[in-house]
């Protein structure tokens, strides 16, 4: 299971970085989403992997329980990354609609005056 989770995080990260390096808004946004999936799985695994163990201490039986804190961290991270994805989609859409160009690199500074601020 460790191997599976670790390679999943690795593959997601690699794919995310590859897409971000494409420097077009849509691949970049997809790449960021893949990266946040990778980081969420990674955070989830930081409390050690365990199956079928409850995330809270059960006082009625001597059961093992998993670390609840990573689950809380992942929840927060998911909410934040969701909001961030919405923001970046809106801004990228605004940039595309106003410039008709979906490259995320800045165009070179034009020489001379006469351009809007």
């Amino acid at each position, binding site marked *: 299971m460790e191997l599976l989770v670790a390679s999943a995080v690795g593959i997601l990260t690699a794919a995310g970085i590859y897409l*971000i390096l494409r420097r077009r*808004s849509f691949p*970049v946004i997809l790449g*960021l989403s893949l*990266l*946040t999936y990778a*980081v969420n799985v*990674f*955070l989830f*695994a*930081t*409390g*050690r992997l365990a199956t079928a163990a409850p995330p809270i201490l059960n006082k009625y039986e001597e059961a093992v329980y998993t*670390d609840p*804190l*990573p689950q809380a*961290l992942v929840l*927060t*991270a998911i909410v*934040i990354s969701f*909001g*961030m994805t919405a*923001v*970046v989609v809106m*801004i*990228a859409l*605004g*940039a595309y609609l*106003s*410039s008709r160009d979906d490259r*995320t*690199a*800045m*165009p070179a*500074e034009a020489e*001379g*005056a006469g351009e*809007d*601020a």
Partner: protein
Amino acid sequence: MNHLLIAPVVLPALVAPFIIMVLRHHLDLQRIFSVASTVLLAGIALTLAAHAADGTVYVYELGNWPAPFGIVLVADRLSAMMLVLTSVLALPVVLYAIGSGWDTRGSNFHALFQFQLMGIMGAFLTGDAFNLFVFFEVLLIASYGLMIHSGGTRRFQAGVQYVVFNLLGSTLFLFALGTLYSVTGTLNMADLAVKVAQLPAEDTALLRAGAVMLLLVFAIKAALLPLHFWLPSAYANAPMPVAALFAIMTKVGAYAILRMYTLVFGPEVAATAGLTESWLLPAALLTLAAGAIGVLGSKKLGRLAAFGVVTSMGTLLIAISLFTQTATAAALYYLVHSTLAAALLFLVADLVIERQGPWILPQLPMPQTGLISALFFAAAIALAGMPPLSGFLGKLLVLDATRGTGLAAWIWAVILSGSLITIIGMARAGSLLFWKGHGLPLENLDTSEEPPLEQPPARPASLPFAACFSLLAGLVGLTVFAGPATRYAEATAAQLFAPAAYIETVLGKEAE
């Protein structure tokens, strides 16, 4: 005192939604509430600083849960100082934005401004590494909105770059936190400090990886050289008053480096020894050099001011990267100065840009050219670190603190030649903008309009000037009261390098 500690976070967090939901269509009321909230924040920050000045560490436990399990807010001298700096910076900036009409050029300026303040205040107060991430996100989300305020193609394009880069930084932040958590089992900073010090020395590979990733994240925020390239285009294309507020955001990165690398990964901790010294200082030197060259080569006033921020971050990080008590005291004094100076330069740049466009070219004298050129001169000598303003004292303190370290010759050479290049760049821009225009032959100019001199200014523009002069007054005050200011900085540095009291206060109630 008890609940005052959380007020800097709660107050803007209440005012901002109120402005959005209730006052959406009442610009005047929005302005009143925004200014009142900022004034109140300044009052709260000053009260907190007065309490913390005697060296007491104040802890606020959210939901009354004791420290390693619950979330805590901590106010010590450093946090209180940063809170005061933020509120003192925010007040002129919001007044300027109102006076120059920037807040009418897009929607929700004041609400975003308050959210931004909330994030910054929270980042300075939190005593928990994960909450540091959360507050970073709050201030970043607000800054995305402010950065593209009033729109425009270039601003949107710069905004996309800024957002994507910061999202990458946030992802790296989470990876770093996950690594630290998997090693130590805690994310409370004081608890981390205890756990990291107890870790066996041979078992620290993962911890070192986490610490390096964390340093990279803070270096992104602080615009350290290989990671600085987002800053000039983002700041230069943001509305100038917003960029003036952003002057504190690079300092959030510097603050986080100071906090984490004195408290958790302190110089004497064996697990992470030698982690920062080897490359933080060279990177800071290169940052200063790159910033100075950028100032010299800028064709637009906004970029000039943005590279000014890069130079000041270079100087600041040189002082921080030494991790000695005297150097940290110098860094803190310079931090206050450079924030105010950079903000002043951005506001003056906006005054010029509003009158004659963003390019540094010879132009006809503009309305109020005398006042603006005087302000530009003051901002330039402040940022370059010339006497009589506090930049000179700050650089002197930094230079003095590097005496005796192995790399002193390098540091002196880079800081002094960086200052010289900055002065030349500023002088070039100032003389092109304010002097060269007087010699322009009149027939070359567009005479279809009235000459700008005879037009009355579109608005009664006293408020922007008041904002600029109050920032300048802050710089002058920092110079005049340099004695008390450096004493406070030294006491703060002493507190930072003796973290036992901090750790005891945060974890104390649990040990009892």
